[in-house]
């Protein structure tokens, strides 16, 4: 039972980071119709920038974290302006390939600056885990869950209450109508990239605090697909719930199936789940079905 609970808790931590990534992915997809294969690389860049501030320039963690968020905001903004702006109206395969190309470039830049070896953040959270009824939960896990929850809450408020948030939802639901209401759709496009970069960064920084960072973290960008499919590509709430589901399932598969087959179940299990979901509900748990009219 303890083993099970431990797996579930680790799953929730990883799952909440999936949720953040999926949130970024869904946001971009909803607003601009772009499938972002570079989501994992945004996470990577964010994590390394934060590392650079903390370790390289000795900035206290909280400030370096905030600085990173500001930096990544503009970084996402610029990516949209320089690359994606020109791709509006191009076929989907071109856009997919563009973000794949972008991911290659970002990964290579990270490697050029920081090398390929695993780097760790200085110890920020107390190392001693806290015990909750026989369970050992480390502080960094708690901090990640709390941080993710805070960010998800912030975004919910942002989308519901602020002008920009409402404008973003308007663009997502109907671009034409949003345009005619005087919403600056191009700015919304750029903004959605900026926010996606920020949420990925939060995920990246906490992953970095748990296990250290190296370039293989960008793998998270591909694992986000089962999550967004399960949740439904265009549902923000779905992305969050599906992130937790996939995170937990993946860890349980890792814990119980891996010993039987000798490892690797963790990587493939989410995709099996995804295929099964796609066969039964092609638009995910919360996605809207496309009605096609001739």
């Amino acid at each position: 039972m303890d083993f099970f609970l431990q797996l579930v808790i680790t799953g929730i931590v990883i799952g909440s980071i999936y949720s953040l990534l999926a949130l970024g992915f869904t946001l971009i997809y909803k607003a601009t119709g772009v499938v972002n294969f570079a989501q994992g690389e945004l996470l990577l860049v964010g994590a390394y920038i934060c590392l650079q501030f903390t370790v390289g320039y000795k900035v206290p963690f909280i400030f370096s974290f905030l600085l990173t968020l500001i930096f990544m905001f503009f970084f996402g903004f610029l990516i949209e302006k320089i690359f994606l702006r020109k791709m509006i109206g191009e076929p989907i395969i071109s856009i997919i390939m563009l973000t794949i190309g972008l991911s290659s470039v970002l990964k290579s830049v990270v490697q050029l600056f920081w090398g390929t070896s695993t780097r760790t953040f200085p110890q920020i959270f107390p190392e001693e885990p806290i015990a909750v009824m026989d369970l050992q939960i480390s502080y960094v896990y708690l901090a990640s869950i709390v941080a993710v929850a805070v960010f998800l809450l912030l975004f919910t408020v942002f989308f519901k209450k602020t002008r920009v948030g409402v404008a973003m939802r308007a663009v997502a639901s109907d671009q034409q109508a949003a345009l005619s209401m005087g919403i600056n759709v191009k700015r919304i496009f750029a903004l959605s990239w900026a926010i996606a970069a920020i949420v990925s960064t939060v995920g990246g920084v906490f992953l970095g605090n748990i296990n250290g960072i190296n370039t293989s973290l960008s793998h998270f960008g591909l694992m986000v697909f089962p999550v967004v499919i399960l949740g439904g590509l265009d549902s923000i709430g779905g992305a969050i719930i599906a992130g937790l589901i996939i995170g937990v399932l993946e860890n349980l598969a890792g814990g119980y199936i891996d010993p039987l087959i000798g490892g690797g179940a963790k990587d493939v299990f989410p995709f099996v789940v995804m295929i099964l979901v796609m066969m039964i509900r092609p638009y995910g748990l919360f996605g809207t079905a496309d009605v096609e009219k001739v």
Partner: protein
Amino acid sequence: MNYTNCGNFKTSYIKDAAIFQTKFSLIMIYSFIVLTFIFPFFANTYYLYLCNTIFIAIIGAAGLNILTGFTGLISLGHGAFIGVGAYAAAYIFNNTDLNFLIVIPLAGLVTAAVGMFFGIPSLRLKGLYLSIATLAAQFILQFFFVRAEFITGGVSGAFVNFPSVFGVSINSDFSFYFVGLIFTIIMLLAAKNLIRTKTGRIFLSIRDNYIAAEAMGVNVFKYKIISFGISSFYAGVAGALWLFYLTIITPEHFTIGVSIQYLSMVIIGGLGSLLGSIFGAVFITLLPEFLRFAADNLSQIYPAVTSAFAAIREGAFGIVIILFLLLEPEGLAKRWNLIKAYWKLWPYSH
């Protein structure tokens, strides 16, 4: 657009449906093929190695172009399908005493079956969802390559002995060149003709507007599956050839990176153009070689270049894709046609 010279009249349907519209292009193609057969007698091992890699890439890219360029279905799992072909060939070759020339199409058939299986989601999924389903195929197959040791040899990979045909052992770049070249010509000819058949035209109609195609009485699902099958057959042949060239394959040969490379070949060459597949395959295969050449020269001035080469190569790959998408979205095949048109129409280009 096919620009032909003035005065080039067609007096029969057969002439109108010919693959090569003019005598001139026919002569050019034949002489080019003859040249490719003479080439290995003058080339060194390095150039032969490049050519052999390009042959395999051309077959794989042509297959992917049938699926993505002609039928409009994006596949992010082509690398894994190539792997299926390679492992199937290794298994058949090691467990039977069939000649490798028979093993290669058999491996193609096995891959076609696997590809069709992973094409089944296309019954309900479209566009983006389908491309993500093929991404799942990539990961599931990759997992299988590592785990199913009784077939694939696991992480240590699968081995074969050098194959032989008519008593000649295919154990060098030189001898493999001819196998690769002949297979490439056969596969390209088959693809070129496939596009001219009813099946090929149905693929195009599904790509352009599948609702209209369905309204015309096309069984869209069936033809999508057929497209997956044919495309995977090409991948399987490419994989089997790769196996017999390297004689050892490991799961690392068939990662998502390979799938992406093939997609970029198709995009850079030109979607829906077989000539484009050739251009793309040549381009993407030679790109790292050019970079290595440049890096070797640069490293004499900046020694740091050597250690950063892997990163530089990946970055350059990304930059090339991005630049092509932004500046030449229709690929090299389009540029080739423009250049041809320029010379045909010169000096009156209006």
